[in-house]
């Protein structure tokens, strides 16, 4: 495609070349337009608007008032609940992210050798929790705080506890249960991507490896499977980082809003608190901006790490 300078009788600049190309592909821009319009309107503009509002005081009714970095200063110096939510979010992300990620890869890896019918059945079983929006609500009954709760009643009848435990209201257990439920739901799109990717690895490579002296399945995993799967691993990582930093609905459904002593208050909970309930849009936007950069940074860092797999 590139226009060779020497052969071209009239030298054109890169800009002119681009304009030429753009004219040639005019129709393609028209095809892109509808999607890009909506994408700009509901993704790019909101991010930019967020950044703008985060420097203002804005309550929707009155025009935004510019206040500089005051929102950010308030977040870090004058809002202990925000700091707690950051701590909770990072704790959740550090546990759910890697654990859910490795869990979904291992499951996909084990599944991929099973006969097709069994594999399909198990895929549905594992994927089902994350398919439907709020299946996790069932955990409120399993971990119900009274003696009628499933777990409590079993523990009581086994004599392990004498009083029912307030699983969803007691700070000691709340985090644990949110983690449990999130891991239960962590086999999502990334998991499907792993399954599909594993089936796409060339069988001949495994046979070659067998001849070349790969001794067991773990070596096979490290030397053959993983390097073949790097694109899927990256995709799965993006999904799992993003999801693990965005835990919010689960904590509201299980622990209520706000949760006891903010024990499972996450950044998004805090964001919704200010954005939807208190209508301090400027402040909420500054939380959103911080979360936005947090998600991007962690995603980039994880990608750097994954590129070294199998080398």
């Amino acid at each position, binding site marked *: 495609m590139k226009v060779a300078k020497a052969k071209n009788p009239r030298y054109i600049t890169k800009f002119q070349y681009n304009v030429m190309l753009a004219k040639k592909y005019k129709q393609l821009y028209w095809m892109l337009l509808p999607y890009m319009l909506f994408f700009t309107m509901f993704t790019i503009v909101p991010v930019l608007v967020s950044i703008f509002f985060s420097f203002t005081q804005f309550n929707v009714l009155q025009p935004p008032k510019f206040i500089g970095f005051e929102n950010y200063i308030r977040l870090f110096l004058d809002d202990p609940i925000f700091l707690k939510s950051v701590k909770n979010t990072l704790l959740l992300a550090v546990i759910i992210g890697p654990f859910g990620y490795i869990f979904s890869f291992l499951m996909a890896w084990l599944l991929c050798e099973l006969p097709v019918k069994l594999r399909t059945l198990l895929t*549905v079983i594992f994927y089902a929790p994350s398919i439907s929006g*709020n299946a996790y609500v069932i955990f409120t009954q399993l971990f119900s705080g009274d003696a009628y709760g499933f777990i409590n009643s079993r523990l009581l009848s086994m004599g392990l506890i004498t009083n029912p435990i307030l699983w969803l209201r007691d700070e000691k257990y709340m985090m644990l249960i949110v983690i449990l439920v999130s891991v239960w739901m962590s086999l999502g799109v990334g998991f499907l991507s792993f399954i599909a990717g594993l089936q796409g690895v060339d069988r001949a490579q495994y046979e070659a490896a067998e001849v070349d002296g790969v001794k067991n399945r773990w070596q096979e995993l490290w030397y053959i499977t993983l390097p073949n799967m790097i694109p899927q691993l990256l995709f799965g990582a993006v999904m799992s980082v993003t999801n693990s930093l965005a835990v919010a609905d689960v904590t509201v459904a299980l622990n209520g809003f706000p949760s006891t002593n903010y024990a499972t208050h996450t950044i998004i909970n805090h964001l919704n608190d200010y954005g939807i309930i208190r209508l301090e*849009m400027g402040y909420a936007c500054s939380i959103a901006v911080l979360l936005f950069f947090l998600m991007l940074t962690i995603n980039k860092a994880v990608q750097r790490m994954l590129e070294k797999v199998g080398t």
Partner: protein
Amino acid sequence: MKKAKLTKKQRKMRKLQKQAFKGQKLMYRSKFARSLTNGRSNRSLSGSLTLLICLFLLSLVMLFPVIFMVSNAFKPINELFIFPPKLFVIQPTLDNFFDLGELLADSLVPFTRYLFNTLFIVIVGAVGHIVLCSMAAFPLSKFRFPGSKLMSNLVVMSLMFSTAVTAVPNYVIMSYMGLVDTVWSVILPALSMSLGLFLMKNFMEQVPTALIDAASIDGATYFTMLWRIIMPAVKPAWVTLFIVAFQTMWGATGANFIYTENIKPMAAMLNQLSGSGVARTGVVAATSLVMFIVPVVLFIISQSNVLETMATSGIKE
């Protein structure tokens, strides 16, 4: 002492013999063992069995809450409040579903209206999503032109943050456009979900470029290329996009955007029902089963297409 007497050559022979014996043993594995180890000699039978058992146990753990939910939906009222609670239903009834039906028949806004709203949102949203994404994915996957790289990168980047980040400004934008309290507030943002474009673009990349070249020699416009050649070839991708869009919008309550009762989707109404306390426990169980089962069934129907699409879902550097 005997061993020491062996010469180097003999020792080597013995080692080879041992290896050969081991190989033979592996070759004559039973059919069962061969199928478990995938016919590969470098896998141990015991290892395969252990992993299978782990998998089985884990799937039980994963399934447990689902079983609980399903059997709850069929429990009569006395079993719902039995002590200690049972995992499985003893006398299954459809009472809960009838109760749900009665409640729905009594409601101020007829149930069919909610159902219509949800179907409208899901179908318009999903079809629009597929149309927009395939129109955008075709140029991005098959051509290089100024801005194409930037747009692809923006889409990949937007996978990296969740929509919760943009929720607040979205509301402000919606209210400026006068979309608050219409179904469009749920549909429009879903149209441009970046996961859809990403999957579609990756899937289109593996459609042979020769097809497009042939068509362009025949003088086809880009639009005809897309509809006549590409779209039939990427059926798995648009099935997947439909499923993803469906999953997102099926459970959407539009809680922050929609206030008028007769344009609320079904999920919002079912949420209201389940908010009404202990007396409705049975109805809640029935409701959650209904909300759960529909996307799962859709996924089961389309899973081979979804997996085919996911095979190309990787992020390439």
